């Protein structure tokens, strides 16, 4: 509930960049009026851990990108990654986002039973 | 700055050529995705170059809308191939 409100207000203020009373009022009413779907609540701890992961993913992605540029990766393969079951939709979304964001891995498919099909590029192994 | 802009326009030509030459529909979609992002970034770049807020907002919205349209189109083309 509060999370939704903060998220929408942030986007509103970034978009309008205006902190007058009228604008705050309009933003508040819009973010209250917009419909929201039902989601099961997550604990604060899960959110903090995923936030940390997101912040860490950005430098990691750049490191991987430089690795790709400097040492060409020419081989590709598919792996399956196991994650814990019974996660809420938003956390699954963030998981997929994190895996796809790093340039070496892309989630191809998500199965309900709790594992992802991940496509990776690797360096060609010498036989 | 102007030189960088010319380089960016040159990069934009690569996916254009690819979209023209490549016959596979998914390769064309990749080129479209690339062009859609690149044009949005170009709009943002020019807005900063000219210090124009209105153009910048258009850039941010084009970034969102272009990608949303791509997702719709990708899903529709996937359905086409199924039937």
């Amino acid at each position, binding site marked *: 509930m509060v999370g939704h409100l903060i998220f929408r207000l942030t986007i509103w203020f970034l978009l309008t960049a205006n902190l007058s009373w009228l604008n705050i009022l309009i933003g508040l009413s819009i973010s209250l009026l917009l419909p929201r779907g039902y989601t099961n609540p997550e604990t604060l701890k899960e959110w903090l851990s995923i936030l940390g992961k997101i912040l860490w993913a950005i430098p990691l992605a750049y490191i991987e990108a430089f690795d790709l540029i400097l040492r060409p990766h020419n081989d590709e393969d598919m792996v399956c990654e196991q994650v814990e079951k019974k996660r809420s939709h938003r956390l699954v979304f963030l998981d997929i986002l994190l895996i796809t964001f790093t340039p070496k891995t892309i989630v191809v498919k998500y199965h309900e039973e709790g594992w992802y099909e991940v496509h990776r590029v690797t360096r060609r192994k010498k036989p | 700055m102007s030189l960088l802009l010319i380089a960016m326009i040159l990069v934009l030509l690569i996916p254009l050529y690819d979209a023209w030459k490549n016959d596979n529909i998914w390769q064309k979609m990749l080129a479209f995705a690339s062009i859609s992002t690149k044009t949005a970034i170009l709009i943002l770049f020019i807005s900063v170059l000219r210090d124009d807020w209105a153009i910048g907002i258009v850039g941010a919205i084009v970034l969102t809308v272009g990608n949303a*349209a791509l997702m*719709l189109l990708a899903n529709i*083309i996937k359905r*086409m191939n199924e039937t």
Partner: protein
Amino acid sequence: MNESYIYAIAALLPLTSIMLVLQVNPYSALVIRGILGAVAALLYAVLGAPDVALTEALVGTMLAITLYAVAVRSSMVMRLGVLVKEGEDGSRGELMTALRSIVNKRQMRLELVSYVDKEELHTALQDKDIHGTCLREGESYSIVMRLQRLYEMIQTELVSSSAILTYLENSDSQEKH
């Protein structure tokens, strides 16, 4: 004017539009239409018309593409009525493959619509639910087409000996596909 890059960007628009006109496959044309929309939005924004650019991005890229996709999907199709009990295997499968390749050459799809008995099949043909029917008659198949264009197209190109093609003379056959 010292902003020479404007000319470079302006040159992209005719380039993409020529690309769009030269496309043959409707789906490729859709994708190129999206590219044209993106490039047009860029040009409009550069020339100092953010409102036009916004409209082009919203309508030209998103709405038009979706509507065109739905239109292409529902119109570029040949619906052929068949009976459920005549299975897809054997000679009919071969016939359908031949038909499909003929139709695909013109960027269309072949859609098989199954019906339970002959009565339903004929009503569907009369009601213009389907473009033609395919029925087993002894060893061979008889294909009845309702539209003249489709009939001529299949007649000139279908070389299969196991099918007899007929054109259904209708009272109001001016309707174009």
